[in-house]
């Protein structure tokens, strides 16, 4: 009874063959459904990943893009020789020595003129000076020292506004909250509006973000020292890890006998690639600083430690690239009488080069973003002056980001995101270079 109801009449007429075909049909449907489900899962996974990526970039860019612009206050400064060079000596050395407060006097005088402050009204003057970066006087001083011919002239100088004024102009400190909770007071807002009306206050491209070193004043802080430090480190990494890594992998891949020792070495290299980078930092502290007595915070030590972290990556990538060169190339080389070394260096290595370069650049990009080992060797430091050699103290881009992220000031928050954007731009550039090099040298068989 149930049999007759469930199975269609056709199958009973057609016998076993028809039933078999219909069963296969049902299986096909199920497999198609499974495939569709799998595709949906895949699509879902990709969509989620893209959503996260967009959210990440969105939040970083939306928080950081404002830092590429900065509030400047331009004022006419009277470079009065009687104040700057009271004894008539206009040399750079004379400007850099003597009473440091005379440059504050210059700024105060020009502020009084710009804001039409009564020279006897000290409170008004100090309220006005609150708007200007505390780094203005040293900036003016080094500006005059760099170009003593300014003395005696009158010209407009762009001063940085303080980080709080900058945040106010950009809207991250809002005017509608009660004055007691606000970092910019009502008296300052009056002055800001006055400056805006006169056209003295404007937003300009923030070149200092790329050229300045560390500063406690957010408006004067930049990633300059970190960029140079990172550059030195990349140079050290490239110079050490590329020849070492390539030589090591050529030997292991082409010349070394295959025995238990080379197996052991291979396992260890793969292991080292997975070792957390902080371990290399500890190693670097123990070996390079405590034992070899290299200077702390130096980009050379940073580069050495990062070399250790990137070497396994480069060796693995190079060996994979060498393995991918077809054996026929080697056989052909050996067949026409080339020595093993000639075969490797004239034929195999050039063909493996795109893979080697890609591996190296990706290893470098990895090293550029590496933070943990640098913390151990003192590269998370407040460094004002540019390093001239890799032996001088420096910071690196990721450690600079780490330091700014812990600062309480509002203006550092946007700078943190801006520094992340700079780092991402470098990573993107390096990865694009890797792709371009691979495309340019790629050979298909």
């Amino acid at each position, binding site marked *: 009874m149930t049999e007759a109801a469930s199975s269609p009449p056709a199958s009973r007429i057609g016998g076993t063959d028809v039933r078999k075909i219909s069963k296969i049909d049902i299986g096909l449907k199920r497999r198609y459904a499974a495939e569709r489900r799998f595709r949906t899962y895949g699509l879902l996974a990709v969509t989620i990943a893209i959503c996260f990526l967009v959210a990440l970039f969105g939040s970083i860019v939306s928080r950081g893009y404002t830092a590429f612009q900065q509030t400047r206050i331009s004022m006419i400064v009277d470079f009065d020789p009687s104040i700057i060079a009271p004894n008539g000596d206009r040399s750079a050395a004379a400007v*850099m*020595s003597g009473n*440091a407060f005379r440059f504050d006097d210059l700024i105060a005088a020009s502020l009084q003129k710009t804001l039409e402050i009564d020279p006897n009204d000290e409170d008004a003057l100090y309220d006005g000076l609150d708007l200007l970066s*505390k*780094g203005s006087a*040293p900036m003016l*001083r080094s500006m005059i020292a760099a170009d003593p011919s300014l003395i005696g002239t009158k010209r407009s100088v762009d001063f940085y506004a303080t980080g709080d004024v900058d945040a106010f102009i950009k809207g991250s*400190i809002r005017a509608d*909250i009660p004055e*007691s*909770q*606000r*970092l910019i007071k009502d008296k300052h807002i009056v002055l800001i509006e006055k400056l805006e009306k006169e056209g003295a206050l404007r937003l300009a491209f923030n070149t200092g973000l790329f050229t300045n070193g*560390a*500063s*406690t*004043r957010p408006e004067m802080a930049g990633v300059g020292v970190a960029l140079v430090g990172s550059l030195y480190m990349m140079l*050290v990494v490239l*110079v*050490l890890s*590329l*020849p070492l890594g390539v*030589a090591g992998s050529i030997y292991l891949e082409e010349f070394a006998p295959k025995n238990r020792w080379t197996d052991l070495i291979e396992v260890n290299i793969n292991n080292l690639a997975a070792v957390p980078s902080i371990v290399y930092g500890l190693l670097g502290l123990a070996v390079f*600083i*405590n034992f070899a*007595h*290299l*200077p*702390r*915070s130096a980009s*050379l030590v940073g580069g050495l430690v990062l070399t250790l972290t990137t070497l396994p990556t480069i060796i693995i990538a190079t060996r994979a690239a060498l393995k991918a060169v077809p054996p026929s190339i080697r056989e052909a080389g050996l067949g026409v009488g080339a020595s093993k070394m000639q075969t490797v*260096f004239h034929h195999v290595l050039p063909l493996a080069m795109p893979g080697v370069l890609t591996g190296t650049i990706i290893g470098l990009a990895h090293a550029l973003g590496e933070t943990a080992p640098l*913390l151990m060797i*003192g590269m*998370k*430091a*407040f*460094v*004002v*002056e540019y390093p001239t*050699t*890799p*032996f*001088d*103290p420096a910071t690196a881009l990721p450690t600079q980001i780490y*330091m700014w*992220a*812990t600062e*309480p*000031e*509002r203006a550092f928050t946007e700078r943190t995101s801006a520094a992340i954007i700079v780092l991402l731009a470098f990573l993107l550039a390096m990865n694009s270079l890797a792709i371009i090099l691979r495309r340019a040298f790629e050979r298909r068989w």
Partner: protein
Amino acid sequence: MKFSTAASAFVLGLCATGTSAFAAEQIHIAGSSTVLPYATIVAEAFAEANPSFKAPIVEGGGSSAGLKEFCKGVGDDTIDIADASRPIKDSELEACKAAGVTEVQEIRIGYDGIVFASDIKGPDFAFEPADWFNAIGAQVLKDGQLVDNPNAKWSDVKAGFPDWDIAAYIPGEKHGTREVFELNVLLAGCKATKAYDAFIASGLAKGDAEKACAKVRKDGKAVDIDGEYNETLARIDSNKTGIGVFGLAFYENNKDKLKVATMNGIAPSVETIAKGEYPVSRPLFFYVKKAHLGVVPGLKEYVEFFLADQMIGPRSPAVAKGLVPAPKEERQKVLADFQAGKTL
């Protein structure tokens, strides 16, 4: 190969230029992240005021890490100054002496205040140390008996507090701030609630009773924050009924997000901490290697510059950043002691 020859030539070149750069050209400082902002302000101003010296290098890393680095020995590759948010321990001083750092000069630069703050839109809080002990102590006194902390809401701690689940974000155990918090808040509260007497009565020795007082409940109501104050602020942002512990400077910079609580009826401010009225504060220090004075260019000048009224006096940039200045006599005594070469 051509490339590796060039590479080795480059490395050799590096070594050649490097050997001359090995002599310490500038001051190297490491230590407490609480002192770090003041040290960087002074370092920056020092470099601006003295163009003949190179700007000092300042690292954070924490008091213990800084003192450990400091005590590694004497020489170019060791740091010259260690910042600390607590006095150096005897064990650390012994380690120093064992490594050849026999003469250490202690400089007290001022004070640091710790504040209790909650979300700006919440109610006002007026705390006493006893409230904090009852809220987050591991064992508290209930009806004359020591019991595992039963309080789940602030309203259980004291009538008049809001009906909020207790969520306290306190400095983690590796923070220098934690010691002050334990001593001036938990221990003080423990004694005020007579729980301390109960611990003694239960047979604990004095030191063990103090340790029991400083113990924090582990059921998730009190959260250790090992990171920076930014993390504490983020926790309060996401949990509007949380109460966090911050440095005074951090609070001053985030007044538009945080509402500060009073302690024993006193609101924290630079004035109340300097006068010693606000109970939760601690002195800040840095330690100088006497052997490096006169060897590292600018070290003596830097220390004297640091102690100038223009740097840590009542109207100085360090104070604007949150340092609580020491009274004038104390500052003068510290400077005089340094100049007299007094060591620990």
